[in-house]
């Protein structure tokens, strides 16, 4: 049971990342590697602010803003300086490594016994005793839900429609007299803001910041997106944001299973890679079949 809670906690935090990755990878068709830097960026800012006694909610907002700023940088590098998408992300990610170290001041910053969104006066009093074991999970769920609803709402606004059009059919955007570069930048900002939010939540859940925590974020994010989208392809009623969240939980469940059932850690990355390839091939096969039908 505790294991299930842990899977859901981790899965829901990564669901927020998956929503961000969904915007770039699926909507904008932009493989954005900056998330490997913005995820720990959110954590670094949160840990530093919380350690100096600032309200955790403010820390979360600061993390979101910083994530958006990092997305802006990637966007500007790509759109204004005309650097290729993959490279723009790599440049931002690389720079953020140093930025994160500077923000936190050291490679590992603990925030045990501090006020976080999971541990503060209000939260500790409103939760009845029987809900205590689920407190962290419920709070993470609420944050993820808020992120999902906001994103769902945004995608229905005019700006959201244009965002979707940039990936699918850039000509439409231009014909509507909009600059597709600006829209791409907005998409990157929202995406990285979400990822930094996830970093902020994760750092408060695990109660320490670690500079290496971002490595492989994009891989997990992509896996979650592809699992989710592939699974729910036929169920059109399921919103993509929900689908990627489920994908993220499934991914974390697979990792937990592998650990519980004694998969050697040495093989872990190999198994992840094979699983990832398998999912990609399945997704690709469907896409080509769809094209044939069309």
């Amino acid at each position: 049971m505790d294991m299930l809670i842990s899977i859901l906690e981790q899965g829901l935090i990564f669901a927020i990342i998956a929503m961000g990755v969904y915007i770039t990878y699926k909507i904008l068709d932009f493989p954005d590697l900056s998330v490997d830097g913005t995820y720990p960026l959110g954590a670094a800012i949160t840990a530093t602010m919380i350690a100096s006694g600032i309200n955790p909610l403010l820390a979360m907002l600061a993390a979101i803003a910083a994530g958006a700023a990092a997305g802006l940088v990637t966007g500007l590098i790509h759109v204004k300086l005309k650097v290729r998408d993959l490279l723009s992300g790599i440049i931002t990610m690389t720079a953020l490594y140093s930025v994160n170290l500077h923000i936190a001041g050291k490679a590992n910053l603990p925030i045990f016994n501090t006020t976080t969104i999971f541990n503060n006066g209000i939260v500790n009093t409103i939760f009845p005793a029987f809900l205590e074991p689920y407190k962290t999970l419920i709070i993470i769920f609420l944050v993820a839900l808020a992120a999902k609803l906001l994103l769902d709402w945004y995608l229905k606004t005019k700006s959201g429609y244009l965002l979707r059009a940039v990936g699918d059919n850039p000509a439409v955007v231009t014909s509507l007299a909009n600059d597709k570069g600006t829209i791409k930048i907005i998409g990157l900002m929202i995406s990285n803001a979400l990822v930094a939010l996830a970093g902020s939540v994760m750092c408060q859940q695990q109660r320490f910041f670690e500079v290496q925590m971002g490595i492989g974020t994009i891989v997990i994010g992509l896996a979650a997106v592809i699992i989710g989208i592939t699974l729910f392809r036929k169920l059109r009623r399921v919103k993509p944001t929900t689908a990627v969240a489920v994908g993220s939980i499934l991914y974390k469940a697979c990792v937990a299973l592998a650990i519980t059932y004694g998969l050697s850690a040495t093989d872990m990355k190999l198994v992840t890679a094979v699983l990832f390839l398998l999912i990609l091939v399945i997704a690709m096969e469907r896409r080509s079949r769809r094209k044939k039908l069309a």
Partner: protein
Amino acid sequence: MKRIFIAIIASLMVLALLPGCSPRSEYVVGIGQFGPHASLDNCREGFIAGLAEEGIVEGENLTIDYQDANFDGGTSNLIASAFVSSKVDLICGIATPMAQAAYNAAEGKIPVIFTAVTDPVMAGITEGNITGTSDMLPVEAQLKLIRALMPDATKIGIMYTTSEVNSESAIAVYEDLADDYGFDIITSGISVSADIPLAIDGLLAKVDCITNLTDNTVVGSLPIILEAANEKGIPVFGSEIEQVKIGCAAAEGLEYYELGKQTGKMAAKVLKGEAEASDIPYEIISESFLYINSTVMAELGLTLPSDMADRAEDVAE
């Protein structure tokens, strides 16, 4: 193909919910190790030996659930939660991130014993149901050794990875003590092992010798450093036996097996109920071991004073 895939996932999910079932020994200990690494492996073996010396023997009255996080923070968290959910009697966290993950997941309900954590205070794991051993380097002994071997040296170079908090702590100690022995510490920070070939040339130009920490990235690329230093005839001092074996001149180092053993004995006290983890202060290993590589020392023209030679172990091949 999709259906097969869904079926696999679904059946895996169901499996996940099944509780693991095995006969329970008197003591169940979860050992979480941050990653596969020779020193950490020695630590773990020492830990198990330490428990055995106190009569808690694997296979007799002890079941060990050993997990390795492969240097991944997310996996560390999952491993720690898995230990808590299977209600082990004690969690042993090897290396800083694993110790922090265990401390966070246990929430004081399960005692946590850590080892191979250089600076438990900086890592924030000194309060509560937790104790363990620190692998802080015997910096003072190392400085004495370097002074004895190189009476005229003034500048010691240290290369470290900026992401390794253990290295930062060790450097702080070096900088604190260096003055007492008439040394200046010159550091060179890198972020990935690919930076080392460039950084080492810059560092060698400024120093009389190099001393190593237990920095994972730097130690992993030690042969590159040794080659560059040997070309210039600059001695490299190590921090543990393995480094001296592959070509460092000498080291005042920790014996990780002994460190693990000391940790195992602490864990035994907690398991037997003789003491609470919260009441035992964390321990630093007091004794350092002197290892030398006589072949390398001869090449560099270094000679060990006779009072030190008595306790030195020559590991040259």
